[in-house]
């Protein structure tokens, strides 16, 4: 880890709750600003390779009381649904719901108004939208 990250754009270029796909060293990476947090994920579904970021993005839905009738919204957990098989991925961890598959996620930080995605060891030098 280099601690730097790849600059993928200015903070104000990222609208709330909209995934913006950027190309970083040949890799398509989705970057998301969601309720004060930042998320980045590979734009490839680990199941069969679908363009994951085309899918709908929504807060995690669950139930508090399995014997009740109400659906509870957990706005702290952005979930991305694959546009093909409709599997869901928790963007906080990359983990799919109900399965072992995990989408690659990356740490994101904002520094001096710039959004930096940490791609890890295979750090890329350039980024383009």
């Amino acid at each position, binding site marked *: 880890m280099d601690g730097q990250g790849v600059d993928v754009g200015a903070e104000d270029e990222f609208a709330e709750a909209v995934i913006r796909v950027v190309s970083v060293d040949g890799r398509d990476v989705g970057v998301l600003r969601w309720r004060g947090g930042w998320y980045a994920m590979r734009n490839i579904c680990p199941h069969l390779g679908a363009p994951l970021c085309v899918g709908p993005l929504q807060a995690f839905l669950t*139930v508090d009381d399995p014997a009740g009738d109400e*659906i509870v919204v957990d706005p702290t957990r952005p979930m991305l649904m694959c546009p093909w098989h409709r599997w869901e991925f928790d963007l906080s961890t990359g983990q*799919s719901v109900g399965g072992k598959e995990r989408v690659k996620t990356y740490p994101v930080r904002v520094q001096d108004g710039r959004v930096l995605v940490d791609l890890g060891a295979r750090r890329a030098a350039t980024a383009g939208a």
Partner: protein
Amino acid sequence: MPEAPATPPLHDCFVRHGWASDAELLAHLPAGWREYMVLHSPRAWHDHLVGAGPEPPTPLTGPIATQPGYPPVPQVTSLAQLCDGYLGPAGVTRALLVHGTGLHVGGVPTVRLAVALTRALNDWTLERWCGEDLRVHALVAVCSQVPDEAATEIRRVGGAAGMAGVLLGADGVSKPFGHPLYDPIHRAAAELGLPLVVVAGGDVPLDAGAYPTGAGFPQTAVEMRTLAHQSLATHAASFLGQGVFARYPDLKVLLLGGGLGWVGPWLWRMDTNYRAFRHDVLWLGDDPPSEHAARHLRVGTHPFDHPADAGDAVTEYFALEPAVARMACFASGHPGAGPSAAAALGVLPGDWAPRVLHGNAEELFGWA
């Protein structure tokens, strides 16, 4: 005297019992409904029942639900016939009576009559079948068209000696049995610790408004038997999908009359679809449907049809899905053409025997 070698218990979860003559049931109806039924009986029996004629030579059949065009369901008609003709010779240690014709009584479209008939049916079962031979267990029949009435009936007789569960036969309103409409039935059964028992074929009566198979009424009796599992799958999926077991964590459901073969592939499909349609079934929580099924659903082995030369292949087939071993209960379908315990065990994987022959049924009904 040396002890005889212990024979493993053999619990049969599917024996059809019925009445020889409708007159048996009439005796258990309240006076008004009895007179109503007499009025709707064939003339010779009518005259006999009002004291104006001799007993006709043929049994009374007709006022109570029958199925035109279908052969009568084979059923044992007396406790002696059951015990001496089957339980003793076959070495059956427990038998669950699930009704033959009686399966459809709760679906009689004249709904007040259906309620009265199911009460009479349960009193008849208790009087004629229960209490005398401890091997014999029975089910509370209900009129599922009116779930509150059904719950009342479950509470009325569900605690009686010999009653082991609640029978969901005729589906009077064409909703799958996991639908919240039936919550009063789920609740009453759970309160009394009684499993629900769904029997394929309950959808045949005219009032059900649905067909027993996926593409309209089957053209042949063979297809009716081969596809009987489809009805059970619809009901079973609804119990899972509606989260009934989240509301009633101890409730169990026994599915009879569709055999075992459908269960494995159906679990695979349920689990596959769970990942795409989780938001429909949030009540299942993190566990896939197959785990809920293994905990709460039990399935009878009847009918157990396969070609004589396919035994090894059938063994191989069942071994693919071990979850089914937790669910399978020996069910003969006696006196219909069903498997003997030996026939079923001949092809099920070898280590399934203790569960299938008695273990799963013991857990389900508390038959220690």
